């Protein structure tokens, strides 16, 4: 894919912006102890509700201001990014592995395997996802692994439905028939012939799912059901911001901007990857 082609689709600049933001946020999260200007947990009632740097009454070193307990907002956002990215990667990959495997089996083998898997997907689709997530975390107990597990348990159907349909389409193609005539086994064909052709969809979905996982984690911490209450997460900062919205709007505005940029970047990335892999669009 040459450069001119990419910009004709309007993919490239947006992809750069999206990738740039994700890289920046990821690096800040990884090196949080080095880049965060303050201790994210340190409370100081003398410093409560400091405004961001360009407003009167701001303190140097507290760039985005502080919350109602005097904790530095920027440092909390940077440390919150750690939880967000861990959940995004772990939950999306887990959901992807389960969902893609089942989708591939249902789509390629059809018959009973397809009927059973599709019935399970129907049942899953009849749950309100947010309520299901809250219920699962309440049952599994709060904590990072519970959040990851809950998101994977709920969102594998996203992968399953798309990959099932794609694998079904692929398995009707001539090349699959040729492979069968050439004497390859069914599982061999599935893994060697069908799987590589659905990988673009899997990768695009994976990127979208990372954005979704970040949101679900934020929702769970918003209702106070994510990880332990001490460590900052984007959702818990939003929950604080929602409470003190009339006294300190910045406590809500900055985590909200962070979340929106992250989610938009993941979805842009997903779209762009899909376009790049898709032989028809290329």
């Amino acid at each position, binding site marked *: 894919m040459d450069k001119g082609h990419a910009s004709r689709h309007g993919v490239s600049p947006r992809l750069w912006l999206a990738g740039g933001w994700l890289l920046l946020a990821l690096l800040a999260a990884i090196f949080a102890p080095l880049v965060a200007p303050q201790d994210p947990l340190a409370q100081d009632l003398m410093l409560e509700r400091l405004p961001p740097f360009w407003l009167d009454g701001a303190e140097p070193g507290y760039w985005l201001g502080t919350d109602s307990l005097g904790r530095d907002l920027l440092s909390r956002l940077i440390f919150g990014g750690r939880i967000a990215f861990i959940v995004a990667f772990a939950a999306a990959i887990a959901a992807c592995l389960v969902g893609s495997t089942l989708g591939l089996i249902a789509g390629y083998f059809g018959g009973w395997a397809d009927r059973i898997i599709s019935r399970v997907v129907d049942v899953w689709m009849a*749950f309100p996802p947010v309520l299901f997530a809250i219920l699962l975390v309440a049952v599994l107990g709060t904590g990072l692994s519970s959040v990851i597990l809950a998101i994977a348990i709920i969102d594998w159907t996203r992968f399953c439905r798309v990959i099932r349909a794609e694998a079904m389409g692929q398995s009707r193609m001539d090349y699959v028939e040729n492979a069968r005539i050439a004497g390859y086994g069914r599982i061999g064909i599935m893994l060697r012939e069908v799987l590589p052709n659905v990988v673009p969809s899997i990768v695009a979905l994976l990127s979208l799912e990372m954005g979704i996982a970040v949101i679900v984690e934020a929702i769970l911490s918003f209702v106070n059901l994510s990880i332990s209450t001490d460590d900052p997460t984007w959702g818990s900062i939003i929950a604080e911001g929602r409470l003190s919205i009339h006294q300190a709007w910045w406590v809500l505005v900055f985590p909200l901007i962070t979340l929106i940029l992250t989610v938009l970047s993941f979805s842009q990335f997903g779209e762009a990857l899909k376009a790049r892999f898709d032989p028809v669009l290329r």
Partner: protein
Amino acid sequence: MLLQRFLIRLLTMLITLFGVAVVVFVVIRVAPGDPIAMMLPPGATDADIARLRALYGLDKTIVQQFFIWLSGVVRGDFGTSISLRQDVLGLVFNRLPATLELAIVALVMAVLLGGTTAILGARERGTAVEAGIDIASGAALSIPDFLWGLVLILLFGVLVPIFDISGRVSPQLDLPFVTQFYFFESLLRLRLDLTWDLLKHMLMPAVALALPLAAIISQLLKQSLKEVLDLDYVVLARVKGFSETQVILREALKNAALPTLTLVGVQFTFLIGGTVIVERLFSYEGLGNMAIDAVINRDLPLIQGIVLVFALLFVLINLAVDMMYALLNPRLRHG
């Protein structure tokens, strides 16, 4: 043909609901934490606990409990809420109308907004207007309802405080309603003062729910319209002297709407699922808000009841859309 299709769908629907019942029952029985212990004051004796466990049927095996519960559900008895000590079905029916109103208002908004932008985009295809609509719908789609809700709270609750950001209705108002459908009833009774108050509370959560769906409708309908607009009969209408807007509204729309309709059905269930967190965000007293409280209080009978009612709603919507599609699609109607 139609009847057969309907019966098959009905059967799958029942299987799905049974599956939901099994899953939710299994999930919450594995929950650590004893709801009975939470109900009793400290210092309750073991005998007290055992008596209460027997009262709620928690002393039987999980399979027994499931079938006792299911046989109750079939008779319309969803049990008693542990935290609120009231009949679950009564509680659910008390809150469901608030959620339905919110979801329906959001759906109407999404259809109007998505439909208008789709028609506008199709009419102005290839221009900057269409490009603008594409960018706006792309953003509306990528940002989920939870974040839209927060954006709206900041814009119209704090920056320009014109709408209420919490509750369903101003608490000081006298409500003459006999149903729980406050909004619809206020419209029917022409109590427009109350309608306005309800709308001021409902508008922002409804917009938050509507935006992603509006974007999907806009994108899909515009795509279908653009395809239809190149067909012969539409070209003929244009030759006859109809304006482009007339061509779209009179000729193209009814043929382009079918794929969108199917999608709107599925997406409407997503919208209803979204009410859970959006109601929480706006402290709107609906079913979703009650559901989160039920989970936090480990109120097993109430959780089961609410999840099952949501699931019933989802499968009924899918069934309705499927039937509507079959009725409207000539190929299926005569097939």
